[in-house]
């Protein structure tokens, strides 16, 4: 059969790399063909999600942050400093997290979706016009965030003026000065040329952009066992592939940026400098609980537990 798979990024960005690997694995181990639909070719993220729920698409990649409109608990990924800042711990966390591997699949199933995997795409860093070493430096900075209450809350807590702006207008708005900052994972800063219109990149370790791949549940449940196995194997292979691909990707992206624009200032804040930013996390957690209720609290607690487990597993 022909299986259709839509994702939110371009072919050569992280989600595209994952999808290409998934396609390669499926096609090598079965007679099925996988057609890939990158960002925008079948509509926005919310559209492809609905199409997957309707069964038009068999697979869809949607980041939990966008799924928040459907599954409020998924917004937990916008709570700052929840995910490990260290890469080994992070990968360990994604491999073994109870929240991700047991709790979220149930929530997705309620929406007719089989959650196949979640994986990180890279640390989210800010690009601004002036150096940022503390929340004070963000004071009065008009900062573009996605239209999401938790991100708005986060950047308000950081002291910035969160300014929602459609993605298509961000480049121009940075160039003319309507906004002075925005955030995205490293590879995305490079591929979308954000560095051309800002002067400073600051990484404070507050988040790692997470995404999720799912299948239409009815389609998946209706498959013979060997096909389900093909999908599971392809998912696992692509997951390991993308973690490996991530090793050093952030550094590589930053290097490419340095090469394209040598005068770019790139600051990785120290533990000490990060502390004031970390102190604001509880405020956003409260906002999250307000939106996602008891079930959100459960997920949040489990994630913290998983984080602790991952930390111990990697340090010992």
């Amino acid at each position, binding site marked *: 059969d022909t299986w259709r798979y839509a994702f939110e990024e371009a072919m050569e960005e992280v989600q595209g790399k994952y999808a290409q690997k998934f396609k390669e694995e499926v096609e090598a181990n079965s007679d099925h063909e996988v057609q890939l639909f990158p960002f*925008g070719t079948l*509509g*926005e993220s919310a559209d492809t999600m609905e199409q997957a729920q309707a069964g038009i698409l068999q697979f869809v990649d949607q980041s939990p942050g966008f799924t928040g409109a459907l599954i409020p608990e998924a917004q937990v990924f916008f709570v700052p400093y929840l995910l490990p800042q260290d890469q080994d711990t992070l990968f360990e966390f994604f491999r073994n997290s109870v929240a991700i591997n047991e709790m979220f699949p149930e929530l997705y199933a309620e929406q007719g979706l089989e959650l196949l995997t979640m994986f990180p795409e890279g640390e989210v860093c800010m690009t601004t016009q002036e150096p940022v070493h503390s929340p004070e430096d963000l004071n009065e900075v008009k900062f573009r965030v996605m239209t999401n209450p938790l991100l708005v809350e986060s950047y308000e807590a950081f002291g910035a003026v969160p300014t929602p*702006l*459609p993605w298509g207008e961000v480049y121009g708005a940075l160039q*003319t*000065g309507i906004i002075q900052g925005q955030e995205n994972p490293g590879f995305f800063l490079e591929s979308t040329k954000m560095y051309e219109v800002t002067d400073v990149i600051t990484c404070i370790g507050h988040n790692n952009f997470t995404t999720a791949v799912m299948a239409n549940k009815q389609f998946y449940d209706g498959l013979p066992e060997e096909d389900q196995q093909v999908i599971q194997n392809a998912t696992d292979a692509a997951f390991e592939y993308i973690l490996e691909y991530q090793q050093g990707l952030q550094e590589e992206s930053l290097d490419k940026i340095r090469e394209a624009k040598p005068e770019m200032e790139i600051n990785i804040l120290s533990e000490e400098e990060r502390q004031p930013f970390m102190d604001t996390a509880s405020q956003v957690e409260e906002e999250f609980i307000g939106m996602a209720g008891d079930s959100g609290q459960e997920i949040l607690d489990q994630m913290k537990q998983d984080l602790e487990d991952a930390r111990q597993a990697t340090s010992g």
Partner: protein
Amino acid sequence: MAATLFSIMIVLLLLGFPMMIPLLVGAAVGFVTMFGGFGQMETMIQQMIAGIRPASLIAVPMFIFAADIMTRGQSAGRLIDMVMAFVGHVRGGLAVSTAAACTMFGAVSGSTQATVVAVGSPLRPRMLKAGYKDSFVLALIINSADIAFLIPPSIGMIIYGVVSGTSIAELFIAGIGPGLLILVLFSIYSIIYARRHDVPTEPKSSWAERGRAVQGALWPLGFPAIIIGGIYGGIFSPTEAAAACVLYALILEVIVFRSLSLKGVYETAKSTGLITAVVFILVAAGAAFSWVISFAQIPQAILSGIGISEMGPIAVLFVISIAFFIGCMFVDPIVVILILVPIFAPVVQSTGLDPVLVGTIITLQVAIGSATPPFGCDIFTAIAVFKRPYIEVIRGTPPFIVILLGVAVALIYFPQIALFLRDLAFAG
């Protein structure tokens, strides 16, 4: 399937159905064929709504509204009187001014549709009065508006830059050369046209008259200040500048000039809503149709058959130009860029073509496509706003299309038209 779809659409179009019907029926036939029945029609509705959702589209009704207020009131007239005081005695001067105004407004606002309305509504009546034929005027407005795509900021270039991984800053600079070249060629054509049709000139104004005209236009000169200063100055996004123009227009016409009553404001808002709906339902239907083309992977099927991987750079550029030109005749330009750029990416890389040049050529084709029949957003906008029949709106188009295609070919053989400024700015 592609052939069936396009045939159905063309027949319905020619029979005189409302333009939304060919697009909707085309999309519906696609859905029914692909999914073996009407089971997935809800996705068609989803995509129609998705088509009118982009935030940048808000600029269109806002500029329509502002332009309508200005035209019903005195602002537009005073601005044009000022321009006429300076160029009225030059044969073709008004046409050249119109082309330049379209270029400047389009460049800044980034919206070709908004340009058609904002510049076209006030200037078209004056051009007709000055003796230009309507077919020429409409074609001039529509085609000059499309230069907006090439001059920064350009949403088409941003999308191309992101999808292909090309520097957006370089693309922006590369677009300026071809954009200005087109403006110059349009101006030359306008002057030739004015001479050949013996468009009458006005007596040359004295400097005193010019001074009075400028004085009369002082308040309305706030509009270009808001648009150009506001956007380049980093105060507004284009959409916000449009809304600010609405506010300013209301203040001028209702309070300062007292030329518009509150009832008039209501009527203007209603008429703006009507025009917006007429154009946006076509945008919506077009989005549903684009989805079908994308989902059925029709471009991939067509392009895999012609063997571009064996072609040389010049041939590849011609294939790219033709593919984008044809695509934009039927499908929304942004969707065309999203679908086609990744398909061409490997061959662009293997032939060693400069991605900035490719991006400029694509942007130019996208510009040409949205002013080209049968389906073109700017044509629809012009019909809705000026209430002229389809045929009349496109009748004067051919000379402009010839100029645009000429520039497209020139760009392939003389890439320096685009790359000269880029190399100058990014040297070393």
